[in-house]
């Protein structure tokens, strides 16, 4: 008891101000909307408030980040005056505070941050790295605020349409960007390893590219009402938990890439390089041809072609890394730190992925009549889980270290990506609402 009191006394006053703020906000939300929630949702609200305080105390930067996002979201919500059409007319909404405007700002900031990180690594410029960090913070702020505003906007479309924005592929991609960038920011501050942003932001930029394509080509940003299977409080915890997993796995894979490029290694023979690049070019050519012509050549086997070209591109990426081992060894990237963060991220991701899968099973038991149906998504979740379980085993039990684990983390991302995207695109199943 005494120890607890001592630890509390050691906390800064800002911790308590933050906690008070969260409690007030939670209290207002509860008193205004508590009657619309069922017990589970009320419990989630209370739990979320607790988790937020815990996170803020654990990582002080969040004491600023979370209230800022809340303030931006509230400003946006206030400007709507309950009329969704104002997103196209009111100046601040149109250019900054509507959820879609915020998403666009998020995209811009992430792209700029990526560029700054690479500049910072290649020119060894601390300034560029710190600008990159700042831009990543800005992007994360835009991402969280946009999701909050979108949540409100969904209720403006219709009281029965409103739902938390984690219900389709578009919304979870924004969530993925948010979580991955926050994890990067946490680890980079803790291990003073900003330069790893050059790699982590690459995977985020890829996700951002997907978001843009998905918005402009497929109009996926439109808010759709929830189908009955998704109308459950389980969604509020299952999906975010899953994306902490996906985010950490993506982060660790990119750190794996960084580690492979940054660990000094014997230079390859010239012939090997030439053969390697030739092979990579051929693979790219085949993959591009498949993409363009597959519907003519193999009209019957769309899924197989999709998996095939995914594997081809993956092979090219791996070949690219293998041919460029050690190329960044002179730059400020510390392989030991990278490997340690990679391990931390996988351990965290594994924990949350386990929780998410269990929550998913419990939800499935409520919605589909069985906690495990060998649905493709479930099965791939199991494969991902087994993969990282094995990774952790060889690191902890066998004491493996270094390149091999880095390679494995990279391959792990391929498996994870397939479980996350490939299953939705290629395989049909109960999870088909996450489809493209």
């Amino acid at each position, binding site marked *: 008891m005494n120890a607890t009191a001592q630890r509390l006394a050691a906390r800064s006053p800002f911790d308590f101000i933050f906690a008070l703020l969260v409690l007030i906000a939670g209290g207002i939300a509860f008193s205004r909307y508590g009657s619309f929630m069922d017990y589970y949702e009320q419990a989630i609200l209370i739990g979320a408030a607790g988790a937020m305080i815990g996170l803020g105390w654990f990582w002080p930067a969040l004491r600023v980040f979370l209230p800022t996002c809340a303030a931006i979201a509230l400003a946006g919500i206030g400007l709507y005056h309950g009329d969704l059409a104002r997103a196209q007319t009111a100046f601040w909404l149109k250019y900054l505070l509507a959820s879609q405007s915020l998403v666009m700002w998020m995209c811009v900031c992430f792209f700029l941050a990526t560029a700054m990180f690479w500049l910072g690594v290649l020119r060894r410029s601390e300034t560029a790295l710190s600008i990159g960090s700042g831009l990543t913070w800005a992007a994360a702020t835009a991402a969280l605020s946009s999701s909050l505003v979108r949540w409100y906007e969904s209720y403006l479309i219709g009281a029965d349409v409103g739902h938390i924005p984690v219900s389709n592929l578009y919304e979870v991609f924004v969530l993925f960007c948010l979580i991955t960038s926050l994890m990067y920011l946490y680890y980079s501050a803790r291990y003073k390893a900003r330069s790893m942003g050059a790699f982590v932001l690459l995977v985020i930029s890829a996700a951002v590219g997907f978001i843009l394509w998905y918005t402009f080509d497929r109009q996926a940003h*439109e808010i759709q009402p929830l189908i009955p299977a998704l109308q459950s409080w389980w969604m509020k915890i299952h999906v975010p938990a899953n994306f902490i997993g996906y985010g950490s796995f993506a982060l660790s894979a990119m750190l794996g890439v960084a580690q492979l490029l940054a660990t000094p290694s014997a230079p390859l023979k010239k012939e090997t390089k030439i053969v390697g690049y030739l092979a990579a070019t051929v693979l790219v050519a085949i993959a591009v041809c498949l993409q363009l012509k597959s519907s003519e050549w193999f009209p019957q086997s769309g899924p197989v072609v999709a998996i095939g070209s995914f594997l081809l591109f993956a092979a090219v990426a791996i070949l690219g890394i293998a041919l460029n081992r050690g190329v960044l060894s002179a730059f400020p990237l510390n392989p030991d730190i990278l490997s340690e963060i990679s391990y931390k991220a996988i351990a965290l991701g594994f924990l949350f992925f386990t929780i998410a899968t*269990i929550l998913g099973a419990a939800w499935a038991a409520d919605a589909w009549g069985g906690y495990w149906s060998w649905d493709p998504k479930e099965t791939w979740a199991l494969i991902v889980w*087994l993969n990282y379980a094995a990774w952790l085993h060889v690191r902890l039990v066998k004491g493996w270290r270094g390149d091999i684990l880095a390679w494995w983390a990279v391959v792990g991302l391929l498996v994870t990506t397939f479980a996350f995207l490939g299953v939705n695109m290629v395989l049909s199943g109960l999870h088909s609402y996450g489809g493209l």
Partner: protein
Amino acid sequence: MRFAISLLTVLAIASIIGTVLKQNEPYTNYHFEFGDFWFSIFEPIGLFDVYHAGWFLGILGFLIVSVSLCIYRHVPGMLRDIKSYRERASYNSLRLIHHHAEIDGTPDQAATEAWLKQHGFRWKTRTEDGVTLLAAKRGSWQKLGYFFAHSAIVVICIGFIIDGNLPLKLREVFGGKVAETRDLPQSQVPPHSRLDASNLSFRGNVTLSEGGGGDVVFLNAGNGYFVQELPFVLKLKQFHVEHYSTGQPKRFASDIDVFDHAGKLLKSGTVEVNKPLIVDGVAIYQSSFGDGGSPLQFARWDLMTGQQTTLAGRSQSEQPFQNGQEKYTLEFGDLRVFNIENMGKLAAQTSAVAVDQFSQALASARSVRAERNLKNLGPSIQFKLRDSAGQATEYLNYLAPFNDSGANYLISGVRHAVTDQFSFVRMPLDDDMKPDTFQRLRATLLDQRTWPEIAKRTADKAFKDGAFSATNRNQFEAVTTSVLQQFAQGGFPALEKFLVAKVPQEQRQGIAQTYLKILQGATVDAMDVAQQRAGLQPLPVDPEHYRFLMDSLVAASSLFDYGPQVYLQPVGFTEVKSSGFQLTRSPGKNVVYLGSILLVLGIFCMFYIREERLWLRVADGRTLLAMSSNRRSSDFDREFERHRTALLPETGDSA
């Protein structure tokens, strides 16, 4: 360990096969997809139901055994280790620990103990031969994490086996149970394919119509099924489906009553997606819905004569059907009460100007509301007319009129093969919103007895207007009759065929236009004749009615491709819905959940509790601090520094 990893790899690969290859499809689909040769290879090794194949369960079994052995081997040692403080560590062994520091002087014991207590250490002090060794440790739960996580795997697998189909498989092998593969009424399924209500665990499906009930569910088993008897009778009172304004489904719910076999009401309630009802340990889930056989009323139109009679039917059922001499089977499919269709983009959304398209793309990327031109086309009925040779024509007929810029139509879709798209016929409705006038017109156009009269009237008009003043009137009438005759043999396509056969290519276009004009003129006159024969007033001459006539002409032509010349116009229905339920009894569920909790707890302990041991050895005025952890990381380096500065205040010669 190596063995376990290879098992896991096989398991993962098998699981991948299971996700790529669609599981539990009807066997005929596999035959069709892979051919007989591959089917005969895939089927015995269970690729069509990987997750229930014997070898898959075998691997799982091995995994349980291997993990159990692992626990059995490691746990006793771990328990000893957890209990032990290692207070007998020698000076040399402590110096070999990577994190150690040594100074001259002795720290204050009370301060040391207070510090250790504050940081959650527990310790033991041992004094011997002037050497005081304080051995402390914390985070012993870390080791328990291993036990939790690994036993969780075993627990979960046991739960799986209880709920999986292993018990059923064993009964198939040893208990003489055989899956039924024939399509039989439930009551005729023989006892060796029936499972009684005491079955420990099952997961099956049943579909009930509103007002109907059932006391069995069907369990899939490879190529066949089992009939599982329920401990109660399930009755569907009513099924509700609600839609969003966009037409997407919003809520599926079934009001059900559950009776025991004596007829006593056990429970009454509503089952919804995500909200199952649990009765007697059996969970009842909403899993699908459909049409449960609704009484339907039709106006039956003979398309040759325009005669109308009535017809009654029931969706999801078959009945004989006679059209003239031909005998058909009328196979009713689904009645769909709502048909909300996206009618394409609104005019405002389609812009040809490129700059506008860009700004529109931006504007649409900014808007989260989907702008869709949605329209409810009202109830529709799908059915097939199968002739005695087994050839079927499929129809999709709508009940409500479809309004297109002011004019109303009845829509009927037709296709001659299941793989085709429906092609739609739009039959225009008259001023009374009825198809009668159109039917009358078509019958008249097809009736050769009326052609001379029509041709005469058309010629009258043509020569009065002076459009064909130079032509011989008899010849004009003959041409008109011929055009009508060709049209009556197959509509516009027949007319075109005639042109292709008889007219040289260079003149064809001109002649075709003339024919079309004549036909259009003749249609107006045919309408007058039809009205006159029916004893009705002629249609007023105005643009609306002219449009009606031209639409009629198009529809009259399309109906030649309609298969049997009968149109069944839906005029009424009484909706009876059906609801599909999944019923499960899964006693292993709680076992699996218990395992899951253990698993999370275990993983948390393993990764987020660091087991640390700390030794403080005081002898001869020198103090040695050593710390070890089960995991080396930079965090631990920092941790050691913290303890060193606190416990060994004066900086000594740290090694």
